[in-house]
Protein backbone atom coordinates (compact mmCIF):
# COMPACT_ATOMS: atom_id res chain seq x y z
CA UNK A 1 0.00 0.00 0.00
CA UNK A 2 2.88 2.38 0.76
CA UNK A 3 4.23 1.88 -2.78
CA UNK A 4 0.82 2.84 -4.19
CA UNK A 5 0.72 5.93 -2.01
CA UNK A 6 4.27 6.99 -2.98
CA UNK A 7 3.45 6.54 -6.66
CA UNK A 8 0.13 8.36 -6.30
CA UNK A 9 1.83 11.44 -4.88
CA UNK A 10 4.37 11.49 -7.69
CA UNK A 11 1.73 10.94 -10.37
CA UNK A 12 -0.23 13.92 -9.04
CA UNK A 13 2.87 16.13 -9.15
CA UNK A 14 3.75 14.98 -12.66
CA UNK A 15 0.22 15.69 -13.88
CA UNK A 16 0.26 19.19 -12.41
CA UNK A 17 3.52 19.88 -14.26
CA UNK A 18 2.01 18.68 -17.51
CA UNK A 19 0.49 21.47 -19.61
CA UNK A 20 -1.55 18.93 -21.60
CA UNK A 21 -3.24 17.78 -18.39
CA UNK A 22 -4.12 21.35 -17.40
CA UNK A 23 -5.50 21.97 -20.89
CA UNK A 24 -7.47 18.78 -21.40
CA UNK A 25 -8.37 18.15 -17.76
CA UNK A 26 -9.34 21.64 -16.65
CA UNK A 27 -9.37 24.26 -19.40
CA UNK A 28 -11.22 22.31 -22.08
CA UNK A 29 -14.11 21.14 -19.87
CA UNK A 30 -14.47 24.75 -18.69
CA UNK A 31 -14.59 25.96 -22.28
CA UNK A 32 -17.29 23.36 -23.00
CA UNK A 33 -19.12 24.48 -19.87
CA UNK A 34 -19.22 28.12 -20.99
CA UNK A 35 -20.27 27.16 -24.51
CA UNK A 36 -22.99 24.71 -23.46
CA UNK A 37 -24.41 26.97 -20.77
CA UNK A 38 -24.51 29.96 -23.09
CA UNK A 39 -26.20 27.95 -25.85
CA UNK A 40 -28.50 25.65 -23.86
CA UNK A 41 -28.65 27.13 -20.37
CA UNK A 42 -30.01 30.53 -21.31
CA UNK A 43 -30.16 31.74 -17.74
CA UNK A 44 -32.52 29.07 -16.43
CA UNK A 45 -31.10 27.49 -13.29
CA UNK A 46 -32.47 23.98 -14.04
CA UNK A 47 -30.99 24.02 -17.52
CA UNK A 48 -27.63 25.18 -16.21
CA UNK A 49 -27.73 22.32 -13.70
CA UNK A 50 -28.60 19.85 -16.45
CA UNK A 51 -25.77 21.11 -18.68
CA UNK A 52 -23.42 21.00 -15.71
CA UNK A 53 -24.29 17.31 -15.26
CA UNK A 54 -23.08 16.72 -18.84
CA UNK A 55 -19.88 18.70 -18.29
CA UNK A 56 -19.14 16.85 -15.08
CA UNK A 57 -19.53 13.64 -17.10
CA UNK A 58 -17.05 14.88 -19.73
CA UNK A 59 -14.57 15.85 -17.03
CA UNK A 60 -14.82 12.48 -15.31
CA UNK A 61 -14.65 10.54 -18.59
CA UNK A 62 -11.50 12.47 -19.57
CA UNK A 63 -9.62 10.14 -17.19
CA UNK A 64 -10.02 7.43 -19.78
CA UNK A 65 -8.04 9.24 -22.46
CA UNK A 66 -5.27 10.66 -20.30
CA UNK A 67 -4.34 7.48 -18.47
CA UNK A 68 -4.18 5.21 -21.49
CA UNK A 69 -1.91 7.62 -23.36
CA UNK A 70 0.33 8.17 -20.35
CA UNK A 71 0.76 4.48 -19.60
CA UNK A 72 1.60 3.62 -23.21
CA UNK A 73 4.07 6.52 -23.31
CA UNK A 74 5.74 5.30 -20.11
CA UNK A 75 5.99 1.81 -21.58
CA UNK A 76 7.34 2.97 -24.94
CA UNK A 77 9.96 5.18 -23.26
CA UNK A 78 11.18 2.31 -21.04
CA UNK A 79 10.06 4.04 -17.83
CA UNK A 80 7.92 1.09 -16.74
CA UNK A 81 10.93 -1.16 -17.32
CA UNK A 82 12.92 0.76 -14.71
CA UNK A 83 10.06 0.42 -12.22
CA UNK A 84 9.94 -3.30 -12.93
CA UNK A 85 13.35 -3.64 -11.27
CA UNK A 86 11.87 -2.35 -8.01
CA UNK A 87 9.48 -4.20 -5.67
CA UNK A 88 6.56 -2.23 -7.14
CA UNK A 89 3.78 -4.49 -8.46
CA UNK A 90 1.66 -3.91 -11.55
CA UNK A 91 -1.38 -3.61 -9.28
CA UNK A 92 0.25 -0.84 -7.23
CA UNK A 93 1.26 1.04 -10.35
CA UNK A 94 -2.21 0.80 -11.90
CA UNK A 95 -3.97 1.64 -8.64
CA UNK A 96 -1.79 4.73 -8.24
CA UNK A 97 -2.92 5.88 -11.69
CA UNK A 98 -6.54 5.61 -10.61
CA UNK A 99 -6.04 7.29 -7.23
CA UNK A 100 -3.99 10.13 -8.70
CA UNK A 101 -6.58 10.69 -11.37
CA UNK A 102 -9.34 10.76 -8.79
CA UNK A 103 -7.54 13.39 -6.72
CA UNK A 104 -6.96 15.47 -9.85
CA UNK A 105 -10.54 15.27 -11.11
CA UNK A 106 -12.13 16.60 -7.94
CA UNK A 107 -10.80 20.18 -8.04
CA UNK A 108 -11.95 20.48 -11.66
CA UNK A 109 -15.41 19.24 -10.64
CA UNK A 110 -15.58 21.74 -7.78
CA UNK A 111 -14.48 24.61 -10.03
CA UNK A 112 -17.18 23.73 -12.57
CA UNK A 113 -19.89 23.58 -9.90
CA UNK A 114 -18.74 26.86 -8.34
CA UNK A 115 -18.66 28.63 -11.69
CA UNK A 116 -22.22 27.54 -12.36
CA UNK A 117 -23.31 28.72 -8.94
CA UNK A 118 -21.52 32.08 -9.06
CA UNK A 119 -21.36 33.03 -12.74
CA UNK A 120 -24.43 31.31 -14.15
CA UNK A 121 -26.74 31.75 -11.16
CA UNK A 122 -27.45 28.07 -10.70
CA UNK A 123 -29.59 27.95 -7.56
CA UNK A 124 -29.08 24.27 -6.73
CA UNK A 125 -26.09 22.24 -5.56
CA UNK A 126 -27.76 19.17 -7.00
CA UNK A 127 -27.70 16.17 -4.72
CA UNK A 128 -24.13 16.42 -3.32
CA UNK A 129 -24.10 12.82 -2.08
CA UNK A 130 -25.15 11.42 -5.46
CA UNK A 131 -22.70 13.70 -7.29
CA UNK A 132 -19.90 12.63 -4.95
CA UNK A 133 -20.69 8.93 -5.39
CA UNK A 134 -20.98 9.13 -9.16
CA UNK A 135 -17.86 11.26 -9.63
CA UNK A 136 -15.87 8.94 -7.35
CA UNK A 137 -16.89 5.68 -8.95
CA UNK A 138 -17.01 7.20 -12.45
CA UNK A 139 -13.47 8.60 -12.26
CA UNK A 140 -12.15 5.24 -11.08
CA UNK A 141 -14.09 3.24 -13.69
CA UNK A 142 -13.15 5.38 -16.67
CA UNK A 143 -9.52 5.41 -15.49
CA UNK A 144 -9.64 1.61 -15.46
CA UNK A 145 -11.05 1.61 -19.01
CA UNK A 146 -8.04 3.69 -20.02
CA UNK A 147 -5.72 1.19 -18.35
CA UNK A 148 -7.32 -1.65 -20.33
CA UNK A 149 -6.76 0.20 -23.61
CA UNK A 150 -3.11 0.72 -22.62
CA UNK A 151 -2.81 -2.97 -21.83
CA UNK A 152 -4.16 -4.24 -25.15
CA UNK A 153 -2.49 -1.78 -27.53
CA UNK A 154 1.09 -1.97 -28.70
CA UNK A 155 1.82 1.51 -29.97
CA UNK A 156 0.75 5.06 -29.30
CA UNK A 157 -0.85 5.21 -32.73
CA UNK A 158 -2.94 2.14 -31.99
CA UNK A 159 -3.89 3.59 -28.61
CA UNK A 160 -5.06 6.83 -30.21
CA UNK A 161 -7.20 4.98 -32.76
CA UNK A 162 -8.91 2.79 -30.15
CA UNK A 163 -9.30 5.79 -27.83
CA UNK A 164 -10.98 7.77 -30.59
CA UNK A 165 -13.41 4.98 -31.35
CA UNK A 166 -14.36 4.36 -27.73
CA UNK A 167 -14.37 8.06 -26.84
CA UNK A 168 -16.74 8.87 -29.72
CA UNK A 169 -19.13 6.17 -28.54
CA UNK A 170 -18.91 7.46 -24.97
CA UNK A 171 -19.54 11.03 -26.08
CA UNK A 172 -22.44 10.57 -28.42
CA UNK A 173 -24.13 7.49 -27.00
CA UNK A 174 -24.55 8.61 -23.43
CA UNK A 175 -26.19 11.99 -23.25
CA UNK A 176 -22.93 13.63 -22.25
CA UNK A 177 -22.99 15.93 -25.28
CA UNK A 178 -26.38 15.57 -26.95
CA UNK A 179 -29.15 14.79 -24.42
CA UNK A 180 -30.17 11.16 -24.77
CA UNK A 181 -33.84 12.18 -24.72
CA UNK A 182 -33.63 13.81 -28.16
CA UNK A 183 -32.39 10.63 -29.87
CA UNK A 184 -34.72 8.13 -31.58
CA UNK A 185 -35.95 5.49 -29.16
CA UNK A 186 -33.84 2.68 -30.63
CA UNK A 187 -30.65 4.69 -30.17
CA UNK A 188 -31.66 5.33 -26.58
CA UNK A 189 -32.02 1.57 -26.12
CA UNK A 190 -28.55 0.98 -27.58
CA UNK A 191 -27.15 3.70 -25.28
CA UNK A 192 -28.24 1.68 -22.26
CA UNK A 193 -25.36 -0.68 -23.05
CA UNK A 194 -22.78 2.10 -22.73
CA UNK A 195 -21.05 2.69 -19.38
CA UNK A 196 -20.98 6.40 -20.15
CA UNK A 197 -24.79 6.46 -20.11
CA UNK A 198 -24.87 5.40 -16.47
CA UNK A 199 -22.49 8.21 -15.56
CA UNK A 200 -24.12 10.88 -17.74
CA UNK A 201 -27.72 10.17 -16.83
CA UNK A 202 -26.71 9.69 -13.22
CA UNK A 203 -24.93 13.04 -12.98
CA UNK A 204 -27.58 14.91 -14.98
CA UNK A 205 -30.22 13.42 -12.70
CA UNK A 206 -28.18 14.17 -9.58
CA UNK A 207 -27.75 17.80 -10.61
CA UNK A 208 -31.43 18.31 -11.50
CA UNK A 209 -32.88 16.18 -8.69
CA UNK A 210 -34.54 13.87 -11.21
CA UNK A 211 -32.74 10.67 -10.19
CA UNK A 212 -34.20 8.22 -7.73
CA UNK A 213 -31.99 6.52 -5.15
CA UNK A 214 -32.66 3.25 -6.93
CA UNK A 215 -31.32 4.65 -10.23
CA UNK A 216 -28.23 6.08 -8.60
CA UNK A 217 -27.52 2.78 -6.85
CA UNK A 218 -27.92 0.98 -10.20
CA UNK A 219 -25.54 3.49 -11.81
CA UNK A 220 -22.98 3.09 -9.04
CA UNK A 221 -23.22 -0.72 -9.09
CA UNK A 222 -22.89 -0.85 -12.89
CA UNK A 223 -19.82 1.42 -12.81
CA UNK A 224 -18.33 -0.42 -9.81
CA UNK A 225 -18.63 -3.80 -11.50
CA UNK A 226 -17.06 -2.28 -14.61
CA UNK A 227 -14.24 -0.90 -12.47
CA UNK A 228 -13.45 -4.23 -10.80
CA UNK A 229 -13.56 -6.21 -14.06
CA UNK A 230 -11.52 -3.60 -15.96
CA UNK A 231 -8.90 -3.23 -13.24
CA UNK A 232 -8.36 -6.97 -12.99
CA UNK A 233 -8.15 -7.40 -16.76
CA UNK A 234 -5.65 -4.55 -17.09
CA UNK A 235 -3.61 -5.99 -14.20
CA UNK A 236 -3.50 -9.39 -15.86
CA UNK A 237 -2.60 -7.98 -19.28
CA UNK A 238 -0.15 -5.39 -17.95
CA UNK A 239 3.17 -5.23 -19.81
CA UNK A 240 6.28 -3.53 -18.49
CA UNK A 241 8.43 -4.00 -21.53
CA UNK A 242 8.32 -1.85 -24.70
CA UNK A 243 8.95 -4.87 -26.90
CA UNK A 244 6.38 -7.13 -25.20
CA UNK A 245 3.53 -7.05 -27.69
CA UNK A 246 -0.08 -7.88 -26.95
CA UNK A 247 -1.58 -10.57 -29.17
CA UNK A 248 -4.33 -9.41 -31.53
CA UNK A 249 -6.87 -11.44 -29.61
CA UNK A 250 -5.95 -9.50 -26.46
CA UNK A 251 -8.03 -6.63 -27.85
CA UNK A 252 -11.08 -8.82 -27.27
CA UNK A 253 -10.55 -8.19 -23.55
CA UNK A 254 -11.99 -4.72 -24.14
CA UNK A 255 -15.18 -6.52 -25.14
CA UNK A 256 -14.95 -8.71 -22.02
CA UNK A 257 -14.71 -5.56 -19.89
CA UNK A 258 -17.98 -4.44 -21.44
CA UNK A 259 -19.84 -7.65 -20.47
CA UNK A 260 -21.15 -6.19 -17.19
CA UNK A 261 -22.61 -3.31 -19.19
CA UNK A 262 -24.12 -5.72 -21.66
CA UNK A 263 -25.91 -7.41 -18.76
CA UNK A 264 -26.95 -4.10 -17.20
CA UNK A 265 -28.10 -2.94 -20.66
CA UNK A 266 -30.32 -6.00 -21.04
CA UNK A 267 -31.70 -5.50 -17.55
CA UNK A 268 -32.39 -1.81 -18.11
CA UNK A 269 -34.00 -2.46 -21.50
CA UNK A 270 -36.26 -5.26 -20.26
CA UNK A 271 -37.13 -4.43 -16.67
CA UNK A 272 -36.43 -0.77 -16.02
CA UNK A 273 -38.26 2.44 -16.87
CA UNK A 274 -34.99 4.37 -17.03
CA UNK A 275 -35.60 5.70 -20.55
CA UNK A 276 -38.97 7.18 -19.65
CA UNK A 277 -37.42 8.74 -16.56
CA UNK A 278 -34.64 10.23 -18.69
CA UNK A 279 -37.29 11.65 -21.04
CA UNK A 280 -39.33 13.06 -18.17
CA UNK A 281 -36.26 14.59 -16.56
CA UNK A 282 -35.27 16.23 -19.83
CA UNK A 283 -38.80 17.49 -20.48
CA UNK A 284 -39.09 18.90 -16.98
CA UNK A 285 -35.93 20.92 -17.52
CA UNK A 286 -36.22 22.00 -21.15
CA UNK A 287 -39.98 21.99 -21.89
CA UNK A 288 -41.24 23.13 -18.55
CA UNK A 289 -43.64 20.17 -18.46
CA UNK A 290 -43.65 20.02 -14.71
CA UNK A 291 -41.51 18.37 -12.11
CA UNK A 292 -40.36 14.84 -12.55
CA UNK A 293 -41.64 11.97 -10.49
CA UNK A 294 -38.30 11.90 -8.63
CA UNK A 295 -38.19 15.48 -7.51
CA UNK A 296 -35.64 15.80 -4.74
CA UNK A 297 -34.88 18.44 -2.14
CA UNK A 298 -33.45 21.70 -3.34
Amino acid sequence: MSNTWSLTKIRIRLALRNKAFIFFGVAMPLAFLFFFVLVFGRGASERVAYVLGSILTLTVMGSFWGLSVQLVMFREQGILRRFRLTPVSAGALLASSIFANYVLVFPAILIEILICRVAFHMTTWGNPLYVFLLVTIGAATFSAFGLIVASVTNTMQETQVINNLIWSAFLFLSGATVPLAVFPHWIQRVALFSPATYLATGLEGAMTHTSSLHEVITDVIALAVGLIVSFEISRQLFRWEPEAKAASRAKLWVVVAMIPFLLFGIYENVYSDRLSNIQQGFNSVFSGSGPSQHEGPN
Partner: protein
Amino acid sequence: MSEPVIRVEDLHKSYDAVKALRGVSFEVNAGEVFGLLGPNGAGKTSTIEILEGLRAQDRGKVTVAGLDPQTAGPEFKQEVGAVLQSTALPEKLRVGEALSLFANFYRRHHDTEALLKRFQLEEKRNAFYSQLSGGQKQRLALALALVNDPVVVFLDEPTAGLDPQVRREIYDIIEELKSDKKTILLTTHYIEEAEKLCDRVAIVDKGKIIAEGTPRELKQRSGNTTRIEVRLSQAPKDGVLKTLDGVTDAREFDGVYVLHSSRPPQTIVSLVKHLESVGSDLQSLEMFSPSLEDVFIELTGRRLRE
Protein backbone atom coordinates in the same frame (compact mmCIF):
# COMPACT_ATOMS: atom_id res chain seq x y z
CA MET B 1 34.66 -21.19 0.75
CA SER B 2 31.29 -19.40 0.86
CA GLU B 3 28.53 -20.06 -1.68
CA PRO B 4 28.67 -17.99 -4.88
CA VAL B 5 26.29 -15.00 -4.80
CA ILE B 6 25.43 -15.44 -8.48
CA ARG B 7 25.22 -18.89 -10.02
CA VAL B 8 24.39 -19.45 -13.70
CA GLU B 9 24.13 -22.96 -15.11
CA ASP B 10 23.70 -23.88 -18.75
CA LEU B 11 21.63 -20.82 -19.69
CA HIS B 12 19.80 -20.91 -23.02
CA LYS B 13 17.67 -18.19 -24.56
CA SER B 14 16.29 -17.76 -28.08
CA TYR B 15 14.36 -14.95 -29.73
CA ASP B 16 12.39 -16.67 -32.49
CA ALA B 17 15.09 -18.23 -34.68
CA VAL B 18 17.97 -16.33 -33.08
CA LYS B 19 19.83 -18.22 -30.37
CA ALA B 20 21.04 -15.47 -28.03
CA LEU B 21 22.42 -17.76 -25.32
CA ARG B 22 23.77 -21.25 -25.91
CA GLY B 23 24.73 -22.77 -22.60
CA VAL B 24 26.21 -19.93 -20.53
CA SER B 25 27.53 -20.95 -17.10
CA PHE B 26 29.51 -18.97 -14.52
CA GLU B 27 29.64 -18.10 -10.85
CA VAL B 28 30.31 -14.83 -9.06
CA ASN B 29 31.57 -14.81 -5.49
CA ALA B 30 30.69 -12.31 -2.76
CA GLY B 31 32.48 -9.00 -3.12
CA GLU B 32 33.70 -9.82 -6.60
CA VAL B 33 33.41 -7.63 -9.70
CA PHE B 34 32.68 -9.96 -12.58
CA GLY B 35 32.58 -8.69 -16.16
CA LEU B 36 30.87 -10.06 -19.23
CA LEU B 37 32.97 -8.75 -22.11
CA GLY B 38 31.90 -9.17 -25.70
CA PRO B 39 30.74 -7.43 -28.85
CA ASN B 40 27.18 -6.21 -29.42
CA GLY B 41 24.80 -9.13 -29.84
CA ALA B 42 27.06 -11.56 -27.97
CA GLY B 43 24.40 -12.33 -25.35
CA LYS B 44 25.61 -10.11 -22.48
CA THR B 45 22.38 -8.16 -22.04
CA SER B 46 20.23 -11.28 -22.35
CA THR B 47 22.27 -12.86 -19.55
CA ILE B 48 22.13 -9.87 -17.23
CA GLU B 49 18.41 -9.30 -17.87
CA ILE B 50 17.65 -12.92 -16.98
CA LEU B 51 19.61 -12.41 -13.77
CA GLU B 52 17.70 -9.18 -13.07
CA GLY B 53 14.41 -11.04 -13.52
CA LEU B 54 13.42 -9.00 -16.59
CA ARG B 55 13.49 -12.00 -18.92
CA ALA B 56 12.84 -15.69 -18.48
CA GLN B 57 15.38 -18.21 -19.72
CA ASP B 58 14.34 -21.04 -22.03
CA ARG B 59 16.58 -23.49 -20.22
CA GLY B 60 19.13 -23.49 -17.44
CA LYS B 61 19.21 -22.38 -13.83
CA VAL B 62 20.10 -19.08 -12.21
CA THR B 63 20.23 -17.99 -8.59
CA VAL B 64 21.08 -14.56 -7.23
CA ALA B 65 21.68 -14.21 -3.49
CA GLY B 66 20.15 -17.67 -3.19
CA LEU B 67 16.92 -16.60 -4.93
CA ASP B 68 15.43 -17.47 -8.30
CA PRO B 69 14.83 -14.10 -10.05
CA GLN B 70 11.78 -15.46 -11.87
CA THR B 71 9.92 -16.79 -8.85
CA ALA B 72 11.18 -14.89 -5.80
CA GLY B 73 9.18 -11.73 -6.60
CA PRO B 74 9.57 -8.60 -4.45
CA GLU B 75 11.93 -10.38 -2.03
CA PHE B 76 14.45 -10.72 -4.84
CA LYS B 77 14.06 -7.09 -5.85
CA GLN B 78 14.79 -5.96 -2.30
CA GLU B 79 18.26 -7.50 -2.63
CA VAL B 80 19.41 -6.28 -6.04
CA GLY B 81 20.16 -2.97 -7.71
CA ALA B 82 20.54 -2.47 -11.44
CA VAL B 83 21.52 0.03 -14.07
CA LEU B 84 19.85 -0.80 -17.37
CA GLN B 85 21.52 -0.26 -20.71
CA SER B 86 19.30 2.77 -21.06
CA THR B 87 17.46 4.14 -18.05
CA ALA B 88 14.37 6.28 -18.55
CA LEU B 89 12.36 8.24 -16.02
CA PRO B 90 9.46 10.69 -16.46
CA GLU B 91 10.78 13.93 -17.92
CA LYS B 92 9.20 16.15 -15.27
CA LEU B 93 10.38 14.08 -12.32
CA ARG B 94 12.90 15.96 -10.18
CA VAL B 95 16.16 14.31 -9.17
CA GLY B 96 15.40 14.50 -5.45
CA GLU B 97 11.89 13.16 -5.98
CA ALA B 98 13.19 10.21 -7.97
CA LEU B 99 15.57 9.20 -5.19
CA SER B 100 12.93 9.61 -2.47
CA LEU B 101 10.37 7.68 -4.52
CA PHE B 102 12.69 4.76 -5.13
CA ALA B 103 13.90 4.79 -1.51
CA ASN B 104 10.28 4.39 -0.40
CA PHE B 105 9.96 1.18 -2.41
CA TYR B 106 12.50 -0.65 -0.24
CA ARG B 107 12.52 -1.88 3.34
CA ARG B 108 16.23 -1.01 3.67
CA HIS B 109 17.50 2.14 2.04
CA HIS B 110 20.27 4.69 2.09
CA ASP B 111 19.77 8.28 3.14
CA THR B 112 18.85 10.07 -0.09
CA GLU B 113 20.74 13.22 0.92
CA ALA B 114 23.93 11.19 1.30
CA LEU B 115 23.35 9.64 -2.12
CA LEU B 116 22.84 13.06 -3.73
CA LYS B 117 26.16 14.14 -2.25
CA ARG B 118 28.00 10.93 -3.14
CA PHE B 119 26.89 11.13 -6.77
CA GLN B 120 27.46 14.89 -7.04
CA LEU B 121 23.82 15.59 -7.69
CA GLU B 122 23.19 17.96 -4.77
CA GLU B 123 22.92 21.02 -7.01
CA LYS B 124 20.61 19.13 -9.34
CA ARG B 125 18.17 17.92 -6.71
CA ASN B 126 15.40 20.20 -8.06
CA ALA B 127 16.25 19.71 -11.72
CA PHE B 128 13.86 17.77 -13.93
CA TYR B 129 15.17 14.50 -15.34
CA SER B 130 14.89 15.98 -18.84
CA GLN B 131 17.28 18.78 -17.86
CA LEU B 132 20.15 16.46 -16.90
CA SER B 133 23.17 15.77 -19.10
CA GLY B 134 23.99 12.21 -20.16
CA GLY B 135 26.56 11.86 -17.38
CA GLN B 136 24.20 13.23 -14.73
CA LYS B 137 21.46 10.86 -15.88
CA GLN B 138 23.85 7.94 -15.56
CA ARG B 139 24.97 9.08 -12.11
CA LEU B 140 21.31 9.25 -11.09
CA ALA B 141 20.75 5.76 -12.55
CA LEU B 142 23.63 4.50 -10.40
CA ALA B 143 22.27 6.28 -7.32
CA LEU B 144 18.85 4.68 -7.90
CA ALA B 145 20.48 1.27 -8.31
CA LEU B 146 22.19 1.67 -4.95
CA VAL B 147 19.36 3.32 -3.03
CA ASN B 148 18.40 0.00 -1.37
CA ASP B 149 21.98 -0.86 -0.38
CA PRO B 150 21.76 -3.98 -2.57
CA VAL B 151 23.62 -7.23 -2.04
CA VAL B 152 24.17 -7.57 -5.79
CA VAL B 153 24.55 -4.78 -8.34
CA PHE B 154 23.97 -5.33 -12.07
CA LEU B 155 25.49 -2.79 -14.44
CA ASP B 156 24.58 -3.24 -18.09
CA GLU B 157 27.02 -1.24 -20.24
CA PRO B 158 27.24 1.48 -17.56
CA THR B 159 29.48 3.81 -19.58
CA ALA B 160 28.23 3.17 -23.13
CA GLY B 161 27.88 6.39 -25.10
CA LEU B 162 29.42 8.59 -22.39
CA ASP B 163 32.35 10.90 -23.00
CA PRO B 164 35.76 9.91 -21.54
CA GLN B 165 35.57 12.35 -18.63
CA VAL B 166 32.16 11.03 -17.48
CA ARG B 167 33.33 7.48 -18.08
CA ARG B 168 36.22 8.04 -15.67
CA GLU B 169 33.76 9.42 -13.08
CA ILE B 170 31.66 6.27 -13.40
CA TYR B 171 34.80 4.14 -13.05
CA ASP B 172 35.57 5.93 -9.79
CA ILE B 173 32.09 5.16 -8.50
CA ILE B 174 32.43 1.48 -9.44
CA GLU B 175 35.86 1.39 -7.77
CA GLU B 176 34.19 2.74 -4.61
CA LEU B 177 31.56 0.00 -4.78
CA LYS B 178 34.34 -2.50 -5.21
CA SER B 179 36.03 -1.26 -2.06
CA ASP B 180 32.63 -1.48 -0.31
CA LYS B 181 32.77 -5.23 -1.19
CA LYS B 182 29.59 -5.14 -3.27
CA THR B 183 29.09 -8.08 -5.59
CA ILE B 184 28.91 -6.60 -9.07
CA LEU B 185 28.12 -8.09 -12.44
CA LEU B 186 28.83 -5.72 -15.30
CA THR B 187 28.61 -6.07 -19.03
CA THR B 188 30.81 -4.08 -21.34
CA HIS B 189 32.39 -3.99 -24.74
CA TYR B 190 35.14 -1.65 -23.55
CA ILE B 191 38.40 -3.53 -23.03
CA GLU B 192 39.85 -0.95 -20.64
CA GLU B 193 36.68 -1.07 -18.51
CA ALA B 194 36.90 -4.83 -18.10
CA GLU B 195 40.64 -4.71 -17.39
CA LYS B 196 40.44 -1.80 -14.98
CA LEU B 197 37.36 -2.74 -12.98
CA CYS B 198 36.86 -6.49 -13.05
CA ASP B 199 38.35 -9.10 -10.74
CA ARG B 200 37.33 -11.76 -13.24
CA VAL B 201 36.11 -11.54 -16.81
CA ALA B 202 34.12 -13.90 -19.02
CA ILE B 203 34.56 -13.25 -22.73
CA VAL B 204 31.23 -13.83 -24.46
CA ASP B 205 30.73 -14.42 -28.14
CA LYS B 206 27.70 -15.70 -30.05
CA GLY B 207 25.87 -16.74 -26.90
CA LYS B 208 28.74 -18.65 -25.33
CA ILE B 209 31.50 -17.94 -22.86
CA ILE B 210 34.71 -18.57 -24.79
CA ALA B 211 37.20 -17.69 -22.05
CA GLU B 212 37.04 -16.88 -18.35
CA GLY B 213 39.56 -15.80 -15.75
CA THR B 214 41.26 -12.78 -14.23
CA PRO B 215 42.37 -10.19 -16.82
CA ARG B 216 45.99 -11.20 -16.12
CA GLU B 217 45.27 -14.91 -16.64
CA LEU B 218 43.46 -14.23 -19.88
CA LYS B 219 46.24 -12.04 -21.23
CA GLN B 220 48.84 -14.65 -20.33
CA ARG B 221 46.78 -17.18 -22.25
CA SER B 222 47.33 -15.13 -25.41
CA GLY B 223 51.13 -15.45 -24.97
CA ASN B 224 51.69 -11.91 -23.70
CA THR B 225 52.38 -10.73 -27.23
CA THR B 226 52.42 -7.07 -28.27
CA ARG B 227 49.80 -5.97 -30.77
CA ILE B 228 51.12 -3.89 -33.66
CA GLU B 229 48.53 -2.26 -35.91
CA VAL B 230 49.72 -0.91 -39.26
CA ARG B 231 48.20 0.70 -42.33
CA LEU B 232 50.05 0.17 -45.60
CA SER B 233 49.91 1.96 -48.94
CA GLN B 234 49.61 -1.38 -50.76
CA ALA B 235 47.98 -4.61 -49.62
CA PRO B 236 50.69 -7.20 -48.86
CA LYS B 237 50.65 -10.65 -50.40
CA ASP B 238 48.69 -13.29 -48.49
CA GLY B 239 50.59 -14.72 -45.56
CA VAL B 240 53.69 -12.56 -45.97
CA LEU B 241 53.17 -10.63 -42.74
CA LYS B 242 53.15 -13.87 -40.76
CA THR B 243 56.72 -14.55 -41.93
CA LEU B 244 58.07 -11.34 -40.40
CA ASP B 245 60.49 -11.63 -37.52
CA GLY B 246 58.76 -12.30 -34.16
CA VAL B 247 55.23 -12.35 -35.58
CA THR B 248 53.02 -15.02 -34.04
CA ASP B 249 49.79 -14.00 -35.75
CA ALA B 250 48.70 -11.55 -38.47
CA ARG B 251 45.18 -10.60 -39.57
CA GLU B 252 43.48 -7.85 -41.53
CA PHE B 253 40.48 -5.88 -40.26
CA ASP B 254 39.05 -3.24 -42.60
CA GLY B 255 42.42 -2.24 -44.06
CA VAL B 256 44.26 -2.37 -40.73
CA TYR B 257 46.85 -5.13 -40.40
CA VAL B 258 47.05 -6.45 -36.85
CA LEU B 259 50.26 -8.27 -36.00
CA HIS B 260 50.95 -10.06 -32.72
CA SER B 261 54.62 -10.11 -31.95
CA SER B 262 56.75 -11.66 -29.25
CA ARG B 263 59.71 -9.43 -30.28
CA PRO B 264 58.27 -6.04 -31.36
CA PRO B 265 61.53 -4.21 -32.29
CA GLN B 266 62.64 -7.01 -34.59
CA THR B 267 59.15 -7.21 -36.11
CA ILE B 268 59.16 -3.50 -36.95
CA VAL B 269 62.63 -3.64 -38.52
CA SER B 270 61.62 -6.72 -40.50
CA LEU B 271 58.38 -5.00 -41.62
CA VAL B 272 60.17 -1.84 -42.81
CA LYS B 273 62.70 -3.90 -44.77
CA HIS B 274 59.90 -5.89 -46.39
CA LEU B 275 57.98 -2.74 -47.36
CA GLU B 276 61.12 -1.22 -48.94
CA SER B 277 61.67 -4.37 -50.96
CA VAL B 278 58.17 -4.32 -52.42
CA GLY B 279 57.91 -0.53 -52.79
CA SER B 280 55.11 -0.09 -50.28
CA ASP B 281 54.84 2.66 -47.63
CA LEU B 282 54.00 2.50 -43.96
CA GLN B 283 51.09 4.91 -43.44
CA SER B 284 50.64 4.42 -39.71
CA LEU B 285 51.89 2.21 -36.93
CA GLU B 286 50.52 1.79 -33.41
CA MET B 287 51.68 -0.55 -30.65
CA PHE B 288 49.57 -1.88 -27.81
CA SER B 289 50.54 -3.84 -24.74
CA PRO B 290 48.83 -7.22 -24.39
CA SER B 291 45.09 -6.75 -23.74
CA LEU B 292 41.83 -8.65 -23.67
CA GLU B 293 41.26 -7.47 -27.22
CA ASP B 294 44.14 -9.77 -28.26
CA VAL B 295 42.54 -12.67 -26.45
CA PHE B 296 39.29 -12.01 -28.29
CA ILE B 297 41.04 -11.78 -31.66
CA GLU B 298 42.94 -14.97 -30.98
CA LEU B 299 39.81 -16.87 -29.98
CA THR B 300 37.38 -15.56 -32.56
CA GLY B 301 39.44 -14.11 -35.41
CA ARG B 302 37.42 -10.91 -35.01
CA ARG B 303 37.79 -7.62 -33.18
CA LEU B 304 35.50 -6.75 -30.27
CA ARG B 305 34.01 -3.70 -31.99
CA GLU B 306 33.13 -5.51 -35.22
